[in-house]
């Protein structure tokens, strides 16, 4: 269950139309390392997590990623708000315009549609948490790349905020992995799958 709060996690106030930048940033909405992908990854993985606190963390981070998706969408929306046909053509935004006008549609910067093929929910706590660590790093790299290309502080500030969150989430997933490891035999973490071989895994509160 979720309750919507009518505010952004970080404020977005962009005053200049720039479809070129919108086309780049949209990748963090529907791209391979985007916020939508992140949210669905964590919210899918949580059900079968053997450690209750880890399921709780996946819920919390999955929820924060939804707020990040909203920030990215607000940025794309504001960057294309008063778009003219000339601007769309000049920036190469015309193909997107033909398909979606200025509505939001989850896709990568290179026009690839959003797909669940970009993430995994594997049903093995060590595998999934290791994927989550990598996911946060991949998203950070995308923000690094965006920050190299974009000068406008109105756009940079929210991107810097989102980048910082990837680092914090990485740390938390690392701690979640340690929590999971502490319930397993350190001589061989891979002796069984804690999400499936329930008779071998002593469930901890």
């Amino acid at each position, binding site marked *: 269950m979720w309750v919507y709060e*009518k505010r952004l996690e970080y*404020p977005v106030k*962009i005053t200049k139309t720039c479809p070129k930048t919108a086309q780049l940033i949209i990748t963090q909405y529907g791209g391979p390392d985007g916020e939508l992908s992140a949210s669905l990854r964590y919210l899918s993985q949580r059900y079968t997590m053997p450690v209750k*606190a880890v399921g709780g963390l996946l819920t919390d981070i999955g929820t924060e990623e939804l707020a990040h998706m909203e920030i990215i969408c607000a940025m794309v929306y504001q960057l294309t708000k008063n778009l003219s046909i000339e601007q769309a053509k000049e920036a190469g935004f015309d193909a997107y315009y033909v398909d979606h006008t200025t509505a939001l549609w989850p896709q990568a910067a290179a026009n690839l549609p959003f797909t669940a093929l970009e993430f995994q929910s594997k049903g093995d706590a060590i595998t999934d948490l290791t994927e989550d660590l990598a996911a946060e790093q991949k998203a950070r790299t995308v923000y690094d790349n965006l920050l190299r290309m974009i000068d406008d502080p109105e756009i940079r*500030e929210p991107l810097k905020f*989102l980048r910082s969150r990837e680092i914090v989430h990485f*740390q*938390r997933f690392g701690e979640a*992995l340690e929590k999971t490891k502490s319930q397993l035999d350190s001589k061989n973490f891979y002796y069984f799958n804690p999400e499936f071989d329930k008779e071998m895994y002593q469930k901890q509160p």
Partner: protein
Amino acid sequence: MSEQNLAIVTVPQQEWSTLYKEEDALNIGTIFPALNKPFFAGEAVMDTKSPVAKEQSGHEDILQKMQQLGFFLVDLGLYLATHETEQQAIALYHEKAQEYATLRRTFAKEQYPLTCLCVPYCTEKAELEFCLMEGPIPWEGAWV
């Protein structure tokens, strides 16, 4: 915890330390100095007021305060998910959550409700027009 083993990732458990003030934390992106690791091309945003986060009116002021406090709770909440017995963190969470609840109530009374759970705090005029529809749409930004 955090015992080193071959063929698996090891991440050390973060230890509790002094936090950023909530006014700074939102601009930095974390309440934890130990996790503030800026990108050189993104330069450090320490002790700077975000150019996009400045207040314009009284109601923007409360909203900004809520944004800062709300973020403080998000970041502290994630910390508590993996440090559930850290006494100072628990006490601080209770304190900030209380402060946030009060602000949310005041904002609903004076401006508009931020969530459906705030509807009971709206004033009498709320009976004439459904108050949940009031207030700007959050993604409009400066275009309101």
